C-alpha cells in the first residue's frame, strides 16, 4: 500500500477526496487554512471555494448536502462562532449527502484571539463530534464522518487542534470512492424550519442522539486499551499520544467520538481500574461528563486548564517526573526574542505611523495590522473579533457623543471588511454615526498567506471572476465621503485622515497598497 507523510490538514483533505466529497468551502484561518489549499491544489474534482466568511461557507456546504452532494466546510474555532447560527439549525434539518464540518481549535492561542474549547459547541448544537489524534486518524475520521452523517442524518464535526493540524505523520493512501450526487428531494417538513416543523425535528434528533450514543458505545472510535489496572486514563485528541508516551503501562480509554459520549464504555473502564484520571486539553469536558455519571476521577485538579499540554506536563502531573533540562542555563546576557512584526515596507506601517502621530483612538480588527498594537507603533487600542472595530467605533461615539468620533478611527482589512465589516458600516450610517473607517486594502488575505477573496478577482481554484468594488459597496451603504489613497505618501495620507476625521459625517478611507510579500 502506498504511504505518504502528510500534515494533519493534508490528511483531512485526502480523507475528503477518498470519501468522494463533491463540494468544500472555508474561510481561511490558522490552523485550518491548509485543508482547502490542499483540496484546491491536489484534488481538483472537488469544487472548492473560499467563502466571504464561515457562516456563508457552512451554508454553501449545507446547500450542497441538502441537494444530495457530499460537502465539507472547514474553519478555525472562532469561525464556528460566526457559523453557529446555521450550525444549530442545520442540526435540526439534517442532511441528504454527507455533511462534515472541520473545526480547528487553537490551544495556547498560537494564532488566535482566544483558546475556546469547541467540544462544548457539539453538545450545544446536538451534533456528533469526532476527534482524531494523528494524521492517519485525520484521514480515517474524515471519511467516517461522511458515512455517519448519511447514516444518522446529522451534520458531523471533526475537531482538530493546532497540534493535530500542524503535525505530520505517515498516512496510508487509498483510492477515491466514486459517490454519485443524490437527487434533491423536496421535503419542506425537513428543510423548512418553521416552528411547526422545528418541534418534531427536535424530537427526531433526540431519538437520533440515542442511536448515536449506542454507536458511540459500540464503535472502536472509543477504544479501551487494557494495561495495568492500578490506574486508568481517559483521554482524547493529541493528549492520547502524550499519555501513551509517558504512561505506557496504564490502561487507556481513548475517546475518538467525544459527542455523544460512550456512557457504558466509561462505566466498564472505570469499574476495571483502581484509580481513574482524565487527561484532556482546555476545559474539563470529559471530566465533567464522567463525574455527572457518578464516577469519581481526577482531572483538572492536576492537569492545567489553560494552554496546550506537552508530554512533560502530563509526565509531571501523572508520574511526578520533572523535566528541568540537564544543561546549565545560559545567563551571560538575555537572548533577544523574535517577536512577530510588520514586514519592512508593509503598507500598514505607513498607516499606523500616521495614526500614531495623530494620537487617535484606534479600533482595530483581526489581521497582520493587529501587530500595530505593539511597539514601535503602539497605535491600536481595541480589538476583539473580525468586524468588531467598526461597531465598537460607533458604540464609543454613542457613549461619549460626536466629539469622540473626532479623535477616533476604525481600521479593518479588505478580507476582514468583506467577512463581517459591511453590516456594522451600514449600522454606522443608519444610526447616524459620524466616524471614519479606514479599510486597509492590501489586495488579499495576507495574514494567513495571501488567499483570494471576493475583491481580488480570482477564486481559490484559480479562475477569474468578478472583482467586488469596495468603493461602490461603501457608497451603497450610504457613505458619501469616500477617499481611495496610497498610504505610502504619508503626508498626503495624514492630510486625508485629519480631514475625514474632522468631518461631522460618516467617511471611509480606502488605503490601497498591495502587501509587500505579494508578487
Amino acid at each position: 500500500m502506498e504511504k505518504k507523510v502528510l500534515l494533519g490538514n493534508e490528511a483531512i483533505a485526502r480523507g475528503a477526496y477518498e470519501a468522494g466529497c463533491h463540494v468544500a468551502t472555508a474561510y481561511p484561518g490558522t490552523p485550518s487554512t491548509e485543508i482547502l489549499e490542499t483540496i484546491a491544489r491536489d484534488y481538483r474534482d472537488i469544487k472548492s471555494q473560499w467563502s466571504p466568511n464561515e457562516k456563508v461557507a457552512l451554508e454553501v456546504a449545507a446547500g450542497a448536502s441538502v441537494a444530495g452532494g457530499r460537502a465539507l466546510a472547514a474553519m478555525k474555532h472562532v469561525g464556528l462562532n460566526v457559523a453557529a447560527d446555521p450550525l444549530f439549525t442545520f442540526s435540526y434539518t439534517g442532511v441528504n449527502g454527507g455533511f462534515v464540518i472541520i473545526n480547528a481549535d487553537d490551544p495556547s492561542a498560537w494564532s488566535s484571539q482566544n483558546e475556546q474549547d469547541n467540544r462544548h459547541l457539539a453538545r450545544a448544537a446536538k451534533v456528533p463530534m469526532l476527534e482524531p489524534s494523528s494524521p492517519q486518524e485525520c484521514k480515517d475520521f474524515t471519511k467516517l464522518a461522511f458515512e455517519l452523517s448519511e447514516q444518522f442524518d446529522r451534520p458531523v464535526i471533526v475537531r482538530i487542534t493546532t497540534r493535530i493540524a500542524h503535525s505530520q505523520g505517515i498516512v496510508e493512501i487509498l483510492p477515491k470512492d466514486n459517490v454519485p450526487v443524490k437527487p434533491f428531494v423536496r421535503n419542506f417538513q425537513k428543510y423548512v424550519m418553521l416552528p411547526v416543523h422545528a418541534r418534531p425535528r427536535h424530537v427526531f434528533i433526540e431519538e437520533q442522539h440515542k442511536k448515536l450514543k449506542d454507536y458511540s458505545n459500540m464503535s472502536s472510535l472509543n477504544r479501551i486499551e487494557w494495561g495495568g489496572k492500578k490506574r486508568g486514563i481517559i483521554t482524547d485528541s493529541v493528549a492520547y499520544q502524550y499519555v501513551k508516551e509517558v504512561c505506557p503501562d496504564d490502561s487507556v480509554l481513548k475517546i475518538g467520538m467525544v459527542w455523544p459520549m460512550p456512557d457504558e464504555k466509561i462505566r466498564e473502564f472505570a469499574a476495571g481500574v483502581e484509580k481513574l484520571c482524565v487527561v484532556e486539553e482546555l476545559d474539563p469536558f470529559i471530566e465533567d461528563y464522567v463525574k455527572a455519571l457518578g464516577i469519581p476521577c481526577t482531572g483538572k485538579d492536576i492537569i492545567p486548564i489553560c494552554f496546550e499540554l506537552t508530554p512533560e506536563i502530563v509526565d509531571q502531573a501523572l508520574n511526578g517526573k520533572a523535566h528541568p533540562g540537564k544543561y546549565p542555563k545560559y545567563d551571560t546576557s538575555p537572548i533577544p526574542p523574535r517577536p512577530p512584526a510588520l514586514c519592512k515596507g508593509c503598507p500598514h506601517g505607513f498607516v499606523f505611523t500616521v495614526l500614531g502621530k495623530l494620537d487617535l483612538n484606534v479600533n482595530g480588527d483581526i489581521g497582520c495590522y493587529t501587530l500595530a498594537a505593539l511597539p514601535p507603533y503602539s497605535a491600536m487600542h481595541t480589538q476583539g473579533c473580525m468586524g468588531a472595530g467598526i461597531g465598537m467605533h460607533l458604540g464609543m461615539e454613542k457613549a461619549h457623543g460626536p466629539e469622540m468620533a473626532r479623535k477616533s478611527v476604525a481600521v479593518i482589512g479588505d478580507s476582514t471588511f468583506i467577512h463581517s465589516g459591511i453590516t456594522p458600516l451600514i449600522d454606522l450610517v443608519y444610526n447616524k454615526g459620524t466616524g471614519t473607517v479606514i479599510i486597509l486594502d492590501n489586495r488579499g488575505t495576507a495574514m494567513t498567506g495571501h488567499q483570494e477573496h471576493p475583491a481580488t478577482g480570482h477564486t481559490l481554484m484559480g479562475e477569474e471572476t468578478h472583482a467586488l468594488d469596495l468603493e461602490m459597496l461603501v457608497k451603497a451603504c450610504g457613505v458619501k465621503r469616500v477617499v481611495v489613497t496610497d498610504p505610502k505618501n504619508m503626508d498626503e495620507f495624514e492630510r486625508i485622515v485629519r480631514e475625514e476625521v474632522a468631518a461631522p459625517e460618516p467617511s471611509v478611507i480606502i488605503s490601497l497598497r498591495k502587501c509587500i510579500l505579494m508578487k
Partner: protein
Amino acid sequence: MKNVIFAGVGGQGVILASKVLMEVAMNAGYDVKESEVHGMAQRGGSVDCNVRYGDRVYSPLIPKEEADFIVSLELLEVMRKLEYLAPDGKLIVNREKVDPAPVQTGAMQYPSDLEEWVGKNVKNAIFVDTDPILKEVGTRKALNIVMLGILSRDLEFTEAQWEAAIKSLVKEKFVEMNLKAFKMGRDYK
C-alpha cells in the same frame, strides 16, 4: 527512537529539512511523526520542527532532555532549544547570525559569547561555517540541505536513501543544486 529538532528563523527552510528526514525514515520502514509551527512564524519569528522516528512514535513533540540532535540554522536559535537536548545529544549549529528585531533597533545586543559558552557547557557540539559551502553551491537557499548533509553523517541511512528523498521532495530544476549541497554537507570537515 531518534529525536531531531531543527531550529531557525522563518524562510530558512527548516520545514523542508524536516520533511526530507521524515521521508528517508519512512522509506527505511520507520514510524515517523513531526510537529511544526505555522501562522505568526511567517512574520519573522523563530521556527522549529520536531522530528521523531522509530518502531512506534506516539507524541509528535519531543520532551525536554530527549533530543538526540538539535540542528540550528542560526546561531542564537540553538539557545532557545537547549533544554531539549539529551545529556549525550549533539548540537549542529550554523555560525551565521540573523539579527532579531530588538538587535536591529539597538534595544538589545546579540550575545557575543555563545560559541564559547556552548563549548564549555555542552559535551557534543559542532559549529559550521556554511558561508564558503553556500558560495560554492551558488545559492544561500541550500542552507537547510547543507545542514541536513552534516546531520546525515550521524544517522544510519545511506547516501542513496537521502538522495532519493531529496529527489522526491524538491522541484526538478532545484534537484541538482540540492544534491550538491547535501554532498558538501556530508563531506564537511
